[in-house]
């Protein structure tokens, strides 16, 4: 395994700084929203985590297609990395949404379109790892996983569009507001700064973690190959 590239090290540090600034902007810089109180500040991280979660699921689908076309196992590694990281970010988005919903909707969870589709998406990608664990042959595993991520990635636009297509209480912050939405609000200029900075920060953090996770996958493959060599 090659030594960690300097640019990745710089990206690690940059990501940490961005995370600290995003937290500062959300907690201290952005004003308190009047109707919801301080819990609204969770929204900046909630949306940013959901964004990178969806980005990763789409990236996994793209890696899946590329694997099916090229047959190169490095794309299988990229796909696994994308799914794993996105599962974590998307889980955080769901948890933060639930925490926000308790005071805003007076419930931790409700089976409305956005929450339901988000939960289904998370479960689809959890099942991805069950599928992988169930197949021993690496080539077959990679091929099946690639097809699975390709089909699974359909759930991402459905989740994204759920609040725009169906009657839902989930607010649409960017774009048209649903008449049924509860907890929606208009962003002030300072709120927009915190919001867009969080989106930017989490995109960079995602790239950084993604790169690190791909390197872990490469190391994992090297160990597997060594094991086979030793056992021969």
């Amino acid at each position, binding site marked *: *395994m090659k030594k960690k590239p300097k640019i990745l090290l710089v990206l690690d540090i940059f990501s940490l700084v961005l995370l600290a600034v995003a*937290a500062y902007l959300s*907690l201290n810089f952005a004003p*308190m*929203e*009047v*109707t*919801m*109180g*301080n*819990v*609204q*500040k*969770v929204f900046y*991280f*909630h949306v940013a*985590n959901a964004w990178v979660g969806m980005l990763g699921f789409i990236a996994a689908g793209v890696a899946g297609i590329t694997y099916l076309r090229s047959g190169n196992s490095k794309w299988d590694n990229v796909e696994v990395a994308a799914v794993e990281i996105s599962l*974590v970010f998307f*889980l*955080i988005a769901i*948890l*933060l949404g639930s*925490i*926000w919903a*308790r*005071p805003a909707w007076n419930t931790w969870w409700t089976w409305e379109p956005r929450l339901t589709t988000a939960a289904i998406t998370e479960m689809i990608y959890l099942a991805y790892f069950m599928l992988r664990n169930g197949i021993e042959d690496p080539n077959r595993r990679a091929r099946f996983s690639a097809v699975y991520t390709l089909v699974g990635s359909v759930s991402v636009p459905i989740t994204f569009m759920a609040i725009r297509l169906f009657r839902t209480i989930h607010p649409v912050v960017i774009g048209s507001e649903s008449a049924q939405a509860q907890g929606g609000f208009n962003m002030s200029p300072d709120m927009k700064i915190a919001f867009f900075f969080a989106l930017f920060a989490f995109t960079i953090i995602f790239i950084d*973690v993604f790169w*690190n*996770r791909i390197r*872990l996958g490469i*190391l*994992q493959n*090297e*160990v597997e190959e*060594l*094991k086979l*060599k*030793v056992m021969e």
Partner: protein
Amino acid sequence: MSISPETTNYMIAGFVTFFVVFSVYITSLFVRWNNLNRDKLALEELEKDKKS
């Protein structure tokens, strides 16, 4: 003038949840990296022994 509801505890819970889950994941990456590196070194030693 409207009074905002007191929801600071939920805000704290939200940020704590984020930092805990994210830290656990990053720690898991570190742990797996170290374990794999250790395995790799051991396997390389075994391979050397096998050759000699």
